[in-house]
């Protein structure tokens, strides 16, 4: 029986039950009063509690419940009406509040639950983020390692350093136990262990390339996990370790220079790979992570590139060394050639003189001997000597000429001569032989062929003589036709255009014979030195084969062309050549005589009263030019600037002499403006002559292009000026040759 220190009223027999009820109600009341207090206390402590109103409500509910139970205490005994009233009020209130609370909880509890779910969700998220952070950090680490590795690898161009560095850095980064590189041998059938990180290995440790594991690795560009027991991985000394660490292998493509096309990237169809094998430490239970594998793949690529760079560099160094050697050799060869040429030139120079002197002596004395009294046999002998020495002299001349021609040191000796006479003389030389061989020669000169021309008479004679001589030499029967004409257009070779300029023309000579003819295949060889067509018949006719070569050189010097046409063996052939000759000014008009025309202009006759204008900025030279012209009888006006000149010039002035001193274009403008001024009265325009200090081609061209009628070289002499004026007035154009 419990002792309670509660109020002890007089209880009936079932007072036990009543007592217990009484006690329970009391404790309930206490509990009900203390719960809200606790709630309030803890909520006040916590900062976050969104439902304060709920709290109040809940508190009220509980308090009222407590009050109800408390008031119950008094209802066990008989109680007054007041107590009953209070009890009822309390109960009513409690009912109201508790219903309200019940209703409200329906709303609130789901909210409170959802808070919980959100909390769960956030926790999950946080965990996930943590994981991702970890991953990113590892990737970042990997990236850093790769960059560092790449930097190390690419900072050198030496193949060995690259590979060694790769292995070392990889080993360090990934904390590997062993790292090895297998390179393909020359034959390509085996892989040879080339580099390892830590362990020494026997030299020439090779593995055949056709192992399945190797093929597997070579087949993909990714890093492949392989068994630690495969031959490529069995590098570590077996030292009783239980668990060999995982092994990964990756291929390293070996790119060759030929793989790099300029415009494409190298295709990875190369067959040659090296194998990189990486082993984790044994007994460490470490696994290969994805990011580590990626690192390995990236590194393998970088190594491939670095290796190819090194290979390219090696090759280019080798090429450069080779070129340098060749250069040196070529230099030496050139110097030797130069020495040889110099020696030859020296030899020729000496021989030229040394050989010709005795030759001349022989020829001269033999000729003299011919003039004396001789018996027929002696005469025959002397003639033979003469003929032979002449031949020899010709041969020597030919050889010396040719070598000079090749040096380019041969200059044409230009002079005026009679072309018609030249042809006739050449034919006269050949006629004796032709008559003996019964070959009539016909000469046909075109009617428009100029008579007096400017050119190298001696060499032209040589050419014609050679060609016609060949025609006679190689013909047994038939006849020979020599035609000479002026050609205007269309020669055989398409890139050789005949442009007849004012004082030049192209002479074409055609020599047709009806002799042995030439095989068209042999034609190109004809002009090479010392080569002769093999026909036996010609062998006996002598000659050194130089003739055509020399003729060709001379023709080329004369800016011409020479070629031979033949229809085949036995059908004869035609030799044609064009050469450029100058037309001699004098006496082509007077065909009847060869006397050069004497300039018949008397001293002052043509020029008295001739109005001329002199423009010169230099006072002294102006005065001098004026003096010249005055002396010749002209009426001279002088101006000192181009503006003044334009103002003063008129149709009365027949000639304007202008001093073109400075190389600018402005000086020539005056010419254009004078042309402009006289566009209406073209025929009244005065002739414009430039006085200048240099008459090179560019100045002359400029003057021509600006419409000047003549160019004179300063300082002008009296006679010069006289000639110039007369020429000008006669022809209305003058370009003084330098």
């Amino acid at each position, binding site marked *: 029986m419990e002792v309670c220190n509660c109020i002890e009223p007089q209880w009936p027999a079932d007072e036990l039950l009543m007592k217990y009820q009484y006690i329970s109600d009391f404790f309930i009341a206490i509990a009900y009063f203390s719960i809200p207090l606790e709630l309030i206390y803890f909520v006040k402590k916590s900062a976050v509690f969104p439902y304060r109103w709920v709290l109040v409500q809940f508190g009220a509910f509980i308090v009222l419940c407590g009050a109800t139970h408390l008031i119950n205490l008094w209802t066990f005994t008989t109680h007054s009406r007041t107590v009953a009233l209070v009890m009822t009020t309390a109960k009513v209130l409690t009912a109201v509040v508790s219903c309200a609370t019940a209703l409200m909880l329906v709303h609130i509890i789901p909210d409170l639950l959802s808070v919980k779910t959100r909390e769960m969700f956030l926790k999950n998220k946080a965990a996930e983020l943590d994981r991702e952070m970890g991953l990113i950090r590892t990737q970042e680490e990997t990236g850093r390692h790769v960059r560092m590795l790449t930097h190390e690898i690419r900072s050198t161009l030496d193949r060995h350093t690259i590979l060694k560095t790769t292995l070392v850095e990889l080993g360090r980064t990934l904390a590997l136990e062993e790292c090895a590189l297998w390179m393909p041998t020359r034959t390509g059938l085996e892989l040879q262990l080339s580099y390892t990180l830590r362990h020494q290995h026997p030299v020439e440790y090779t593995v055949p390339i056709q192992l399945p594991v190797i093929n597997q690795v070579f087949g993909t560009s990714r890093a492949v996990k392989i068994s630690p027991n495969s031959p490529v991985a069995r590098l570590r000394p077996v030292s009783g370790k239980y668990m060999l660490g995982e092994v990964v292998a990756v291929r390293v493509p070996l790119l060759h220079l030929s793989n790099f096309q300029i415009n494409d990237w190298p295709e990875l169809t190369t067959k040659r790979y090296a194998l990189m094998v990486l082993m984790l430490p044994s007994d460490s239970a470490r696994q290969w992570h994805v990011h580590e594998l990626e690192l390995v793949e990236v590194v393998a690529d970088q190594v491939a590139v670095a290796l190819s760079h090194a290979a390219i560099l090696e090759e280019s160094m080798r090429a450069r060394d080779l070129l340098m050697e060749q250069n040196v050799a070529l230099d030496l060869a050139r110097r030797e050639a130069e020495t040889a040429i110099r020696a030859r030139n020296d030899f020729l120079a000496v021989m030229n003189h040394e050989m010709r002197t005795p030759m001349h002596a022989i020829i001269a004395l033999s000729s003299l001997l011919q003039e004396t009294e001789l018996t027929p046999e002696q005469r025959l002998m002397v003639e033979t000597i003469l003929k032979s020495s002449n031949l020899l002299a010709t041969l020597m001349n030919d050889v010396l000429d040719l070598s000079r021609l090749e040096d380019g040191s041969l200059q044409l000796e230009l002079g005026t001569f009679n072309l018609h006479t030249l042809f006739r003389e050449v034919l006269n030389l050949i006629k004796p032989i032709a008559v003996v061989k019964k070959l009539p020669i016909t000469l046909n000169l075109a009617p428009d062929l100029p008579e007096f021309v400017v050119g190298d008479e001696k060499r032209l004679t040589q050419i014609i003589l050679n060609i016609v001589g060949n025609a006679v030499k190689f013909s047994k029967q038939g006849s020979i036709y020599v035609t000479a004409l002026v050609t205007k257009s269309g020669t055989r070779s398409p890139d050789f255009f005949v442009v007849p300029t004012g004082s030049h023309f192209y002479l074409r000579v055609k020599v047709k014979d009806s002799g042995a003819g030439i095989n068209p295949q042999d034609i190109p060889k004809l002009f090479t030195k010392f080569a002769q067509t093999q026909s036996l018949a010609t062998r006996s006719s002598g000659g050194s084969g130089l003739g055509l070569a020399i003729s060709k050189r001379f023709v080329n010097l004369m800016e011409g062309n020479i070629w031979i046409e033949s229809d085949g063996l036995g059908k004869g052939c035609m030799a044609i050549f064009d050469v450029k000759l100058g037309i001699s000014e004098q006496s082509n008009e007077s065909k009847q005589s060869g006397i050069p025309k004497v300039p018949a202009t008397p001293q002052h006759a043509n020029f008295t009263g001739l109005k001329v204008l002199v423009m010169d*900025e*230099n*006072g*002294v*030279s102006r*005065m*001098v*030019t004026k*003096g*010249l012209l*005055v*002396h010749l009888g002209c009426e001279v006006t002088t101006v000192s600037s181009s503006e003044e000149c334009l103002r003063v010039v008129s149709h009365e002035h027949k000639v304007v002499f202008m*001093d073109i*001193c*400075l190389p600018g274009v402005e000086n020539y403008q005056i010419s254009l403006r004078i042309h402009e001024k006289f566009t209406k009265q073209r025929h009244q325009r005065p002739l414009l002559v430039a006085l200048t*200090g240099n008459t090179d081609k560019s100045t002359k061209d400029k003057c021509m292009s600006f419409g000047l009628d003549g160019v004179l070289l*300063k*300082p002008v*002499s*009296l006679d010069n000026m006289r000639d110039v004026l007369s020429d000008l007035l006669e022809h209305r154009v003058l370009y003084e040759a330098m």
Partner: protein
Amino acid sequence: MGLVKMQKSLQDYTKSLFLEGILDSQFLQLQQLQDESNPDFVSQVVTLFFQDSDRILNDLSLSLDQQVVDFKKVDPHVHQLKGSSSSIGAQRVKNACVVFRNFCEQQNIEACHRWLQQVKQEYYLVKNRLETLFKLEQQIVASGGMIVAFEPGF
């Protein structure tokens, strides 16, 4: 001295000028242009030459003495002088001008100074000689003689 002697010494003097290269054939041309209608042609031309050249040489000295030499201004002067001297046949002056001009183009200030001095020297030389020549001629004319045209025998 006698007229003949004076004439001879004039000839010799003129000859020496040609031999020394101070004058060239252009001067002869000038002499040829002198006739009755134009009796003082040569001396007129030469006087003009002296005036022009004095002016030009002055300008040249000024231009070259500037802090910053404007070669674009110097060149035309030299060209003028070259033209004038070649017109009257002052060979050495002309040659010196040519060299001077080259250095002008190269903008070599030091060489230009040197060659300006050279040009001046040659000019004063030819001026001196020509003045002597004219004096000789005047003496001959004053004595009633005639100036015989100089025939270069070479």
